[in-house]
């Protein structure tokens, strides 16, 4: 984690000198007020001065909202401002969590919420499993000796940079009624299918498209892990006449495992929050078959005429608990990895 590109100066600095031209202007302007602050607080106090702008913005737009979120989830009503809302205790959580049968969303008080929980759970399990396997496969292929490796890496990686809206639109265009996919399939004698209007197909494509968009990112992390495996291990295995499959199971997979674990957890964190691509692609439909938790929060709190901000923040806190758990897991894993590397 300590080096970014491993090459200070050189090309990187000429590039950033171009990128940071307005930046340097700003620095010059700030010279005088900062000298004043240094006279006022001394060298030791400058740490706090340097930290202040970031922490001020961070507090206002991240920390305070996190705190308010808890307070908000304890209130009811349709008013926006906190003063006009009434205290309902854990009522919102009760509303969200009341179900006579948790496996059937229609028996829940908030059937849309539970539908979105079910959808998200299904999405997370299916998407993360396939995504990790496909990323691993891609990383293994890209790790082979081949010509134009940079090009091939780019082929799998570039969708990562596309915005979710663009990804959603590209696939919506291909999957529509008179789209490319139907044209190709009908050419081979298949029936026309309304890919985004059938419940199970819509879910399939939501999963497929999100894998398409993100596999390059995870493949890249795994590729870095593969390239860190010492080559002499493979040479030794070859000397011993070990088969390729055995080499994979006994050398590659165990040594790649820490990276794989990070990839799995990162993919889980991202999958739980799925919103953008799916929202543009299917809009949550047909019905509520591809509505995920983030979309439920958005619709309940913002898109609906009767905006229920209390319910939305209660739902977001429930999702946040899952995410904080996963993040703690991720930090734990990467810390353990860092410690191992240090030893």
């Amino acid at each position, binding site marked *: *984690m*300590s*080096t*970014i*590109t*491993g090459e200070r100066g050189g090309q*990187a*600095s000429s*590039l*950033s*000198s171009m990128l*940071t031209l307005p930046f340097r202007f*700003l620095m010059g302007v700030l*010279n005088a007020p900062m000298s004043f602050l*240094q006279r006022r607080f001394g060298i030791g106090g400058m*740490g706090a001065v*340097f*930290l202040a702008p*970031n922490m001020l*913005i*961070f507090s*206002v*737009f*991240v*920390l305070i909202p*996190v705190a*308010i*979120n808890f307070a908000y989830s304890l209130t009811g009503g349709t008013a*926006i401002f906190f003063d006009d809302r009434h205290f309902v205790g854990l009522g919102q959580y009760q509303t969200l969590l009341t179900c006579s049968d948790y496996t059937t969303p229609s028996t829940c008080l908030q059937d849309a919420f539970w539908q979105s929980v079910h959808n998200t759970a299904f999405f997370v399990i299916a998407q993360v499993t396939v995504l990790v396997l496909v990323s691993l*496969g891609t990383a293994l*292929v890209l790790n*082979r000796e*081949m010509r134009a490796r940079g090009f091939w890496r*780019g082929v799998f990686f*570039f969708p990562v*940079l*596309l*915005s979710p*809206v663009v990804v959603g*639109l*590209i*696939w*919506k*265009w291909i999957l529509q009624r008179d789209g*490319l996919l139907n*044209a190709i399939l009908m*050419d081979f004698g298949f029936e026309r299918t309304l890919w985004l209007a059938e419940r199970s197909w819509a879910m399939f494509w939501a999963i497929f498209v999100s894998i398409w968009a993100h596999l390059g*990112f995870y493949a890249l*992390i795994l590729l870095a892990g593969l390239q860190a495996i010492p080559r002499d291990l493979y040479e030794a295995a070859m000397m011993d006449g070990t088969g390729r499959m055995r080499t994979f199971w006994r050398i590659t997979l165990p040594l790649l495992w820490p990276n794989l674990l990070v990839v799995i957890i990162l993919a889980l964190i991202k999958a739980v*929050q799925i*919103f953008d691509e799916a929202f*543009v692609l299917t809009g949550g439909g047909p019905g509520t078959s591809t509505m995920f938790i983030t979309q439920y*929060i958005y619709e309940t*709190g*913002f898109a609906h005429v009767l905006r229920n*901000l209390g319910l939305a923040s209660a739902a*977001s806190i429930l*999702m*946040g608990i899952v995410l904080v758990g996963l*993040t703690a897991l991720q930090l734990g894993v990467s810390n353990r990895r860092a410690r191992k590397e240090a030893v």
Partner: protein
Amino acid sequence: MSALSTFLLRRRGGTGWHWTDVLSYIWLALGLFLMFGPVLWLVVSSFKTPANLAEFPPTFMPLDAQVAQVQGYEQPLPLFRVTLDDGSEKILAQVRRVGIMAQMVDPENPGTVIRVPIDKRTPVRAVNLATENYAEPLQQFDFLRYFQNSIFVTVMATLITLVVNSMAAFALSKYEFKGRAAVLGIILATLMVPLSVIVVPLYLVVNSLNLFDTLWGVILPTVATPTGVFLLRQYMLTIPDELIDAARMDKASEWQIYWRIVLPLAAPALAVLAIFSVMWRWNDFLWPLIVLSRKEHYTLQVGLNAFSGELNVQWHFVLAMTVLSIVPVALIFLFLQRYITAGIANTGLK
């Protein structure tokens, strides 16, 4: 024959083909098709006229019906390839169509009208790029506005991110002060907590600061990124403290140390953060969707979504604008791919 196949299939190192080799090539070919295909289809489609887009099955290349000026007719007439009664083929211009018959004229001899059954004629078409798909939405609709908004948001957010994050990272890596561990802890704790969890209260904060439906309401909540602080701090830790002590001996002010010594040395990390920030802000969707309500404030992503969600989707415009919105990202990718991939591989950030 066997000599030829041995030659063709010979591989470096002299070892034979393994089934994993075959699988790798299939994987790469499939990858090329599945990853590039959809984007290629988007670009090709964006140059088609509405009539061409509505065709099923679709044509691969953007085709446009050919027209010709014919003497005696004010409007240009569409050209058709017609099979005449005597079996010969001829290119005729269509004057009008009545039921299943079409009245056509020979462009070289416009005097006589020839009546042709419509199933005996096929339109003459040629590859033609419908560049009006790009020009019109920029003039007629607010797309230019959306572009400006997106550029403003991206540039301002990235600049502020770089300044405040690098200052905080400098403080957290080079100063000893009370509460440093606590601040670091908070930053680590919020590293992965996404915006989607705090949208409701964030909306309230932005609202009470009178930033609702403004571009600053989109920019400010995103600039104090914990990821950026963390990334820069990890890098600045590798800058030797002796450099800073030496500068202090030379009576450099702390601010000068920061921007004359630490920032230039942290340039690679700043470049990575700048690239990431540009991509993040250019592609942001959920938060702008919530904050911006008036159309003239929309960013490109929100505008694209609204435009494609309308009842009668004008796909020819949507596709063209989607392609335009990719251009900056594609440029970044082409020129800075090495930095991006190295940045991701080393930090696991996105």
